[in-house]
């Protein structure tokens, strides 16, 4: 598995393309290959059972909004995957350092499943967790600070140059970024 991953990344040349472009290229190549395999099966080729959770993946991805290109959808999923990874890393870090309460506050406020419409107030979270409101503010500020660092660290690791990193970082933040 590790050899396969190394071989995959050995094809990436930062001088030729941004990492995201490289991934997009690989994805297109994979889709074309899958399409060819699909056609072969329809012509009577051998049946292979794949255990990939396509249904789950489809559910997790949002349909592109009307007028939005597949390129835009790909960019958004790229940003989403970076956030997912960084949030996982934040959870692990909080657990490892005995800071579960910080992650809990962050989850209850920033990851509220129904968004701004029903986001709980700081006071409601404080009462639920039995802590002062000021601590809710502090834990949330800490978690966001830390998440920002983890996000940028992950992005930097994926970029081939400082210029690419700065270019990609623009798409990470801001309300109109994705």
């Amino acid at each position, binding site marked *: 598995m590790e050899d396969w991953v190394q071989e995959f990344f050995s094809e990436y040349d930062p001088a030729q393309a941004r990492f995201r472009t490289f991934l997009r290229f690989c994805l297109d190549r994979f889709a074309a290959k899958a399409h060819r395999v699909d056609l072969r099966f329809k012509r009577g080729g051998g049946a292979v059972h794949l255990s990939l959770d396509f249904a789950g993946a489809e559910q997790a991805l*949002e349909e592109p909004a009307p007028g939005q290109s597949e390129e835009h959808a790909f960019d958004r999923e790229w940003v989403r995957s970076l956030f997912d990874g960084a949030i996982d890393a934040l959870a692990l870090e909080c657990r490892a350092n005995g800071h579960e309460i910080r992650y809990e506050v962050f989850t209850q406020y920033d990851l509220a499943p129904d968004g701004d419409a029903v986001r709980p107030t700081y006071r409601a979270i404080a009462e639920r967790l039995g802590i002062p409101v000021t601590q809710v503010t502090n834990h949330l500020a800490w978690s966001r600070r830390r998440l920002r660092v983890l996000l940028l660290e992950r992005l930097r690791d994926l970029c081939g140059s400082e210029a690419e990193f700065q270019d990609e970082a623009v798409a990470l933040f801001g309300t109109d970024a994705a």
Partner: protein
Amino acid sequence: MSPITGETLRHLQRVLEEPDLEGERYRLGPLLGRGGMGIVYQATDVALGREVALKVLRPEFTEGAADVRFRREAQILARLEHPGIVAAHAVGTLRDGRRFYVMKLVRGARLDDSSQRRSLPDRLRSFLRICETIEFAHVRGVIHRDSGSP
């Protein structure tokens, strides 16, 4: 963890870009504009009870050349006292390491929004005032390098 929803993603993108003003004398207001290096918000100076403009370095620029340029920009702004140049009140560093500086909040219409409604002589008068302001900076050794035509 299951992937975050689109709405949660947009919320996170917004709050992670916003400056963390905890411990500062400013309360964050609406976003006014976003440039290549910094983001400008309206803010309230709680100590003096006045509205200001707060420019903060983008999250990815907490160190390196951009950080140095941003600090220099604030210093230059602070020493250029001219009616055509926005006055800088204060500089600082947020808890996450991002630099910020606070300026006078300028109200009114943007030149590029209002110029179509104005007569040519009126627009030329504005252009002359801009040239005088840029000359004021030039004779003090400052070149703007980012001025554009509306």
